């Protein structure tokens, strides 16, 4: 569309449309990940400065209720209401409630992040969620997507679920796991070991080192390590002279210099002629090496694997990785921005997968995320590991601390209220509490 800047208004319009109107029937194939799409919508609007605070209270509350309705009674969240049964179906079978359609790890991550926009973290059944999360870990350190009634962990052993598990753990427990909760914690060392084993001969990371390196899996591994504090503090590297990152200790990665080479190699010069050619010839030899050089009006895209085509989403997966390992300065934002703005940004707002493609929610969000990682003016400061604004990350941090403070119930004039233990009036209020009403005490006796 030939504009070299972010058309904020048009993007806001695109995302408001995604929020307010029905998505086209084509999205039916993503019905099981509506929670993911929902998160992209809420977070994109936040990045653009038109977040949920612009909505009426009632609408925010409705969205919150919808997310909470997808919570599974045994912990975790379902991907969409099509995976969540009415409450009455989850019959207690002696060792907890019947599973029905199990909770799902990606949905849980995106639900928690979405609640950060419209709700509170104490609305999550935290203990159940953490215990459930632990059941998803395999002996090799990897995680599954969900666990069946028979106790079978389903889903690939790849880095995606490790990332999601690390992120859910971060959101619910933060950096410090209390002694009391340690027994319910996942095995972090095993996960790190598993991630380390995933590096391939060419320096990238794959679902295991036996497969082809892939920028999506690489992002998931690095972001997981980042959330587990297994990467060196990026600020100490980027502020020092270039070159020190290669000697920095990076406990989570086997071969850092190979990793950096692989990441920067994902940049490819985009030329228009590429479009007209067949897939096989798209990565063909440049006619002369001089074409590899760059001038003012050129475009740089990213591919996800060696010798593949440029795709909007990889602009994020790769720049985010470089940023997290403190090497964000190894790329030149100009030609990358130009590729996104002039080649994949769409005239109705949003971004498409590749030049000429219609916008979709996934690429539209990751296009914004790539720009935000490169500190695009007009977008909020960004946290590449959680893929949300820093402001939102801080909010989640605070929400977690708030949720961790226990609250107690007290009675006044026959009604129950709750009060946080860190409330200045806590002692006084509890001392003044009435006895619970007679019928409640009786009811509790029957239950027991």
């Amino acid at each position, binding site marked *: 569309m030939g504009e070299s800047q972010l058309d904020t208004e048009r993007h806001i319009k695109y995302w408001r449309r995604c929020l307010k109107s029905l998505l086209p029937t084509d999205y039916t194939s993503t019905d099981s990940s509506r929670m993911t799409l929902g998160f992209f919508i809420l977070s994109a609007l936040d990045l653009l400065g038109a977040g949920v605070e612009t909505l009426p209270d009632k609408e925010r509350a409705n969205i919150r209720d919808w997310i909470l309705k997808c919570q599974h009674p045994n912990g975790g969240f379902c991907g969409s209401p099509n995976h969540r049964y009415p409450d009455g179906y989850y019959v207690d079978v002696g060792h907890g409630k019947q599973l029905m359609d199990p909770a799902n790890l990606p949905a849980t991550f995106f639900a928690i992040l979405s609640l950060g926009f419209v709700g509170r973290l104490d609305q999550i059944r935290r203990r159940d969620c953490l215990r459930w999360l632990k059941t998803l870990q395999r002996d090799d350190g990897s995680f599954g997507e969900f666990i069946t009634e028979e106790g079978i962990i389903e889903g690939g052993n790849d880095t995606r679920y490790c990332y999601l598990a690390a992120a859910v753990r971060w959101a619910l427990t933060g950096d410090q796991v209390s002694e009391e909760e340690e027994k319910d914690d996942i095995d972090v060392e095993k996960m790190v070991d598993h991630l380390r084993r995933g590096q391939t001969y060419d*320096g990238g990371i794959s679902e295991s080192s036996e497969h082809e390196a892939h920028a999506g899996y690489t992002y998931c591994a690095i972001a997981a390590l980042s959330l587990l504090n297994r990467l060196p503090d990026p600020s100490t590297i980027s502020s020092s002279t270039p070159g020190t990152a290669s000697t920095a200790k990076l406990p989570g990665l086997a071969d850092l210099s190979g990793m950096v080479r692989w990441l*920067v190699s994902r940049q490819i010069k985009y030329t228009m002629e590429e479009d007209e050619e067949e897939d096989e010839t798209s990565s063909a030899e440049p006619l002369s090496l001089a074409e590899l050089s760059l001038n003012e009006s050129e475009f740089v895209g990213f591919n996800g694997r060696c010798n593949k085509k440029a795709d909007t989403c990889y602009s994020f997966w790769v720049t985010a990785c470089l940023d997290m390992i403190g090497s964000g300065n190894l790329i030149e934002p100009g030609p990358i921005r130009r590729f996104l703005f002039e080649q994949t940004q769409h005239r109705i707002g949003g971004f498409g997968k590749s030049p000429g493609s219609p916008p979709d929610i996934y690429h539209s969000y990751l296009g914004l995320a790539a720009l935000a990682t490169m500190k695009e003016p007009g977008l909020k400061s960004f946290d590449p590991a959680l893929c949300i604004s820093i402001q939102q990350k801080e909010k989640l941090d605070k929400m977690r601390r708030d949720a961790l403070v226990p609250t107690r119930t007290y009675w006044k004039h026959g009604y129950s209220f709750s009060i946080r233990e860190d409330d200045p009036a806590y002692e006084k209020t509890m001392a003044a509490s009435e006895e619970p009403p007679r019928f409640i005490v009786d009811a509790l006796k029957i239950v027991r």
Partner: protein
Amino acid sequence: MGKYEGNPVWDDVVPIPQDDGEGALAQIAYTDEYAEAMGYLRAIMAAKEYSPRVLDLTEHIISMNAAHYTVWLYRASTLRALNTPIDKELSWMNEVALQNQKNYQIWHHRQILIDQLYPSISSDPAAIQALADSELAFMTQMFDEDSKNYHVWSYRQYLVRKLGLFNSPAELKSVENLLRKDIRNNSAWSHRFFLVFCNPEYSTPDSKATEYDARIPDAIVDRELAFAQAATFEAPQNQSPWNYIRGVLRKGGRKLSSVEQFAGEFVTLPEDDSAEDVKSSHALDFLAEAWSEEGKTEKADHALRLLADKYDRIRKNYWDWRRAPLKEKTSK
């Protein structure tokens, strides 16, 4: 009347429709067909019914939403309960996979089926070979559509381990065929690396892909170097074989400088003022690292400077970053 409502076969089922509520996010304009089928699937799953009509219903849902994460499992359980022949399911899946190139669940389902089938043929080499052949034929069909389909390659690596195909001539041959068609097919290069360096016959179990493996025979290292080197002459600017060569050298515990002469075929850097001749930026990168390994700091720096300023300017910052530690060395 839909496909299910009013249909005598489904008469006994009360569908459980989705309850979306007011604040629904990412609401989709479902077709009536999808909404109805989904309601019936939910009812069937709640009742834990595993009957032949479940196969029709799950097939119907899969045709509209192949990424439904539990319908596949439910289908697998139904197949088990009904003792349905696995080969029948595999050939049905071939069709589905060809229609849903990007879907991941299909391949996971296929693994479940193979896991289920394998014990019954594990002591019959002819049956294993027959399965390997028919799977290879199907994957070749998939690769005709997209020779870099990630899910198919992952499944293939799984199958090589499961059926023990590391030494199968057909396996290596088929990878070579794919590379002959497209020498830039990095998926095929990766698969070759796996076949060669994870072969349990001579590799150390659990050896990392990025580390030296003392058990790899020299002859294998030589063979693989020769194979990848030939490919670089065919297309010097193709990064796949250059990466492969680095990987092979590392597995074999050899230095980059051990193949310096080969890389030098693509690069001439005259001592005087005459122009250099560079046929591959990857060769230049390779030499820069080899020279820096040998302490030839100035030559290495020269190569990196050429990359930054002339032959690979889109990665200028990276090449400059690589130069920084060399400068430290020369100033000492």
